[in-house]
C-alpha cells in the first residue's frame, strides 16, 4: 500500500509544487491582511483536492489496467487512496498550522483555540467531501465525477443562506457557542465514520470495475 501512496505522491508532485506557490501567496496575504486561519483552511482543501487529481492522472494514463496486474488486491488499491486522502489533508494542516501560529505571535488576532476549532471543522468538511467524491469518481470517472463534486460542494453552500433564513422564521436557534465548539472539535472524528463507510462502498465499486 505504501508503494501505491508513493506512486500517487510522485504523480501529483507537480501539482503540489503549484499548490505550495499558491499557499506561499496566501501566506503573504495572511501576513499582511491577518488571514492566518484562511490559509490553513485552503491548505486542507488543497490537500483533499490532490486526491481527486491523483484519480485524474490515473485515468489519463490508464494506470488501473496496469495497477491490476500488480501483486496487490483491489481492496488495497482503494485503501491506498483513502490513506493518501488522510495523509494529504492532515499533512497539509500539520505543516501549515505551526507557521500560522507563528504569524499570530505577531498579530495576536485569534486564539489557538479558534484556529484549532476551525481546523477541525474544515478537516471534517474535507473528509465529508472525500467520502462522497471518491466513490463517485470511481463509479462515474473523473469527468462526470467532477460535476457531481461541484454540486456536492456548492449546493450546501447555496442552501445555507436559505437554511439560516428558515431557522429564524421557524424560531430554530443554534446551540450555545460552547456546544458548537465541542461539536467542532469532534467533527473530524465523526466524519471518519462516513469516510470508513465510503471506503466500503468504493471497495465494492472497484471490486467489479473493469478497465
Amino acid at each position, binding site marked *: 500500500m*505504501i*508503494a*501505491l501512496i*508513493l*506512486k500517487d505522491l*510522485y*504523480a*501529483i*508532485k*507537480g501539482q503540489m509544487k503549484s499548490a505550495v506557490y499558491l499557499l506561499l501567496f496566501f501566506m503573504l496575504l495572511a501576513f499582511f491582511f491577518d488571514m492566518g486561519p484562511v490559509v490553513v483552511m485552503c491548505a486542507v482543501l488543497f490537500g483533499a483536492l490532490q486526491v481527486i487529481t491523483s484519480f485524474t*492522472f*490515473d485515468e*489519463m*494514463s*490508464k*494506470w*488501473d*489496467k*496496469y495497477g*491490476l*496486474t*500488480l*501483486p*496487490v*488486491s483491489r481492496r488495497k488499491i482503494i485503501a491506498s487512496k483513502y490513506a493518501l486522502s488522510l495523509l494529504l489533508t492532515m499533512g497539509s494542516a500539520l505543516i501549515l498550522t505551526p507557521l500560522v501560529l507563528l504569524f499570530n505571535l505577531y498579530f495576536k488576532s485569534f486564539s489557538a483555540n479558534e484556529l484549532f476549532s476551525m481546523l477541525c471543522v474544515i478537516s471534517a468538511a474535507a473528509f465529508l467531501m472525500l467520502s462522497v467524491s471518491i466513490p463517485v469518481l470511481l463509479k462515474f470517472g473523473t469527468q462526470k465525477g467532477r460535476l457531481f463534486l461541484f454540486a456536492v460542494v456548492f449546493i450546501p453552500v447555496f442552501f445555507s443562506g436559505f437554511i439560516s433564513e428558515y431557522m429564524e422564521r421557524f424560531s430554530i436557534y443554534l446551540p450555545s457557542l460552547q456546544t458548537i465548539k465541542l461539536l467542532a472539535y469532534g467533527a473530524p472524528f465523526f466524519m471518519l465514520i462516513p469516510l470508513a463507510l465510503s471506503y466500503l462502498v468504493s471497495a465494492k465499486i472497484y471490486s*467489479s470495475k*473493469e*478497465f
Partner: protein
Amino acid sequence: MTAISIRNLHKSFPAFALRNISFDVQKGTVMGFVGENGAGKSTTIKCILNVLKKDRGLIEIFGHDHVEEEVKIKEDIGVVYDDLPFPEMLTGKEIEKFMHKLYKKWDSPLFYQLLNQFKIDPSKKVKELSRGMKMKLSISIAFAHHPKLLILDEPTSGLDPIVRDEILDLFLTFMQDDNHTILFSSHITSDLEKIADTITFIHEGEIVFSENKDVLLYDYAIWKGSPDEMKDLPEEAIVRVRKGVFGTEALVRKKYISRIFPIKRPTIEELMVFFTKGEIR
C-alpha cells in the same frame, strides 16, 4: 506443465463477445496470440489478468485459479501493454522507487542495468520519452522482478523494425530459461514467426486454431491457379478459397493432395487472411 490454461471462457459486451475460448500455454514456450484488430486478443489477456471480469469459464495460471490466488500469481507475471500506463509525470527513478516495494523479487540493479542497456535516462519523465523508449522502459519494469511468465499485449506495435528486433532479442534471451513462458499477442505476424513456438488464432471472439507453429506451417499449403484448375484439387484438401484479379488461391491441407500440385508454404499472415477472408468450400 501448463503456465496458462483456459477453458470455455466467455465474456460479453454489448457489441462484442468472447465465446468458448479454450487453449493452453505450455511452460517453457512462447505462444503467439494472433488476430485482427478487435478480434478479442486484448479482451482475452485482460480476462486472464482479471482486469476484465469473465462471465464464465476457467482460467488457471501455474495451476492456480487466476482470481482465488491472484496476488500470489501476479508476483511471477510481467505484463507489457502496447503503451506505458504510468502517470506521465513519473520518472524511471520514481517508478523504481515504488515498484521495488511491490514485488518481493524486485531487482534494482537489473532494472538500472536494463535502462543503461537501452540508453534510457532514469531521471526523464515518462512524457519526455519516445514511443520506443516507453516500450523499453515498460519491458525493463516487467523484467526487473524476475517473472516466470510474460504477458505481452501488442508490445511491438507502432515500433520501427530496429527497435522491434532489439525487443524480440530480449524476449529470446528471457526464454533461455526453461521455466520461462511468454504469451505474446500481436498482429505483426513476422515477429511471431521469429519467436513463437505455438500460434493461437482468434477471430471475432472465437479461437480458430491453437497449434504448434511448425505443424501449422507444414500442415497447410497455398495453391494458386485458375478456377478450372481448382476443380482438380481433392474436395477434402480445400480449407479456404480466395478469388482475386490474378486467379484463385486455396488454402489446402498438404496431406490430402498429391505432390504434382504446385503449392507453397504459407506464412502466418497468409493463414490469418485465409481464415478471416477466405470462403469455405
